């Protein structure tokens, strides 16, 4: 069953005095257990689409349903807090908190049940993503880009949500690190029954995904992957 349904979603920006439509009457169903990638030329609206799915802004037309309920009726802030996690290319973490505290922070913000004590759960999660305790208590600025991205993913997982979104998460990383991150996403989809949607230009990422979507003319087109019944 689909965890996330986009129903005739449209979105555009006002440019001067005319409106430019970026997302145009887009409908698509995302399912749990699958790793989706979205690609498309620069400026095609990938980040815009992900922002709509992540409720960073409101749709102008149409609706986004989470588990059959429109996210606006759930409440955008509550939806962001409890049902999705988003990983950006950069600017994911609070610079004045340690890696560990960044993870504990979202555990405090979400309403989802998290096993206590938070510190222990967070350290375990960070450890699984290759961040040992000595690094976890360091200030964020003292971690490498790859390490920071792992912390961002750990933070995204910390709230136990089913929907994981990422906007070019490997854009700044070398290929080895990229490969590791991709396998983490794949794992989440297949072993933890999450719905993982990653925007990426990278062939590496697209290759590994279950469903690959191309954003053109404001619509999503399946390039690779089985049509669901």
């Amino acid at each position: 069953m689909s965890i996330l349904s986009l129903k005739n979603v449209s979105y555009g920006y006002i440019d001067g005095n005319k409106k430019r439509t970026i997302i145009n009457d887009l409908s698509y169903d995302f399912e749990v257990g699958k790793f989706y990638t979205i690609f498309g030329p620069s400026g095609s609206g990938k980040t815009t689409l992900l922002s709509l799915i992540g409720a960073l802004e409101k749709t102008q037309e149409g609706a986004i349903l989470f588990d059959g309920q429109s996210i606006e009726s759930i409440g955008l802030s509550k939806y962001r807090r409890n049902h999705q996690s988003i990983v950006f290319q950069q600017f994911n973490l609070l610079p004045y908190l340690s890696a560990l505290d960044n993870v504990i922070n979202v555990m405090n913000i979400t309403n989802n049940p998290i096993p206590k004590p938070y510190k222990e759960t967070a350290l375990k999660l960070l450890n699984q993503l290759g961040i040992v305790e000595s690094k976890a208590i360091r200030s964020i600025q003292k971690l490498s880009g790859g390490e920071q991205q792992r912390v961002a993913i750990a933070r995204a997982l910390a709230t136990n949500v089913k929907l994981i979104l990422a906007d070019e998460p490997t854009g700044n990383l070398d290929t080895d690190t990229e490969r590791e991150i991709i396998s983490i996403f794949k794992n989440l989809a297949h072993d933890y029954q999450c719905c993982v949607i990653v925007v990426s230009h990278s062939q590496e990422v697209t290759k590994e995904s279950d469903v690959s979507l191309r954003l053109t003319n404001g619509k999503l087109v399946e390039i690779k992957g089985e049509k669901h019944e």
Partner: protein
Amino acid sequence: MYFILRAIEYIKKQKAKTILLFVLFFIIANIAMAGLSVYRASEVAKQNIRTEIGANVVYSIDSVKLTTDVKSGLIEYETDASTLAGVPLLKNVQLLVNLDYVKSVDMILHLEVVNELLEQYIYIPTTTQTGQGKVNPTVETGDFSLKTYSSLIPTDFSNNNATLVEGRFANETEISSASNVILVEKTFADNNQLKLGDTVELTEFNATDSSPISFTIIGIYKSNVVLDDRIARTMSPALLPQNQFFIHFDAIENIMSTPVSDDTLLAGAVFELEDPTYISAFKVFAAEKIDLKYGLLDANDALYNQLSGPIDSLGNLSGMMVIIVMIAGALILGLITALTVNQRKYEIGMLLAIGESKLKIISQFIVEVAVIAVIAFGLSVFTGIQAGKMISESVSMQPSTAVVSTTGTQSGRGSSSKYTQPVMTNPSMNIDDVEINIELDGKSILLLLGSGLLISIVSVIIPALYVTRYNPKQILNNIG
């Protein structure tokens, strides 16, 4: 409540900003605290002056206005003063006694009396001046004067113009039976070999069918009034303190030929109020009751103004200082927050993206500022009062002698004693007695710090609200 932890971590990591804010708060709080302590001290000092000058309001004829109006021909020289509006007639005094705040009244009447057998005190000039200042020989006056009192202690005694050295004032039985009991001055008593229990025979001066009345001496007093040489030379000898006798108001009819009535003109009345702070209210009420055209209500205002003037300007200055520094502080803080909130845009966007509520994000910013403010304000309580002490010490108070002499003789020459000032100004009061004590009570400290904190919070909330009204995409977009 994790936002509090975030705030603490932020304060710890952003050391430069924390120190800047701390220094800002500390300086502002110190200036404000110093200003407030000086302001408070000046208020207290003014109150002390009032208390020391006393809660007495003297109601008398406005002799200055009377003289001007006579000179300019507005009223006739021969006009009977008791027909003028607003003068202290008995009925007017009684109207004012009924006003709020009045504790007691001392009704003062002068009556000139004679007794050929008694020796009059003669003033010996301390300097030799010829020609000038001789008593006008064409006007005849009595040898002595009676001065009445209606309060338990005559005002002249309560304000230290005179001190009782022997005996007492009239007691209740003597007052209710209008007994002829009298207080005389020590020099007079010594010169005439009089002692307590002796009697003096007095006759009203210039009355048609008057006979001597005998008074029993119940008290002997000493006058503390030091008269200015020139005034003493020119004033009627009967009015010299040494030639003055005190009798109770109710006994005056025993010797006075004209009966006391509502229209009797008093030399004055001294209203003692419940508290010195009621003086201005009392004056307002009194002016509503009586048209004080030729009447004057004076609470020793000239002396009060002279003493409180410099303190007043110090107080106003420091009050202004507090307000200016608070406004400047709010503006600086608002600016700092506006600038840093702009730097922290992406942090706000990120917090919103992970579902943090706007309220908690703003609360975090408030806690960040409040923690620093509370520490800085707390320290400034000690240093600010110290600074206040230094300020008030450096603003030197000119120790000038401010004895205002209104020693009751403006109209002494040639006119009836009825026009003289009823009581003399407390002669011992001068500015050396005025002390400024820098002390702040807990209430005003709390008020100052509370409003400081409130201003800080508001100047944080405004720029923060400005940013959080955006949705997270807009914020993140602008940076990415």
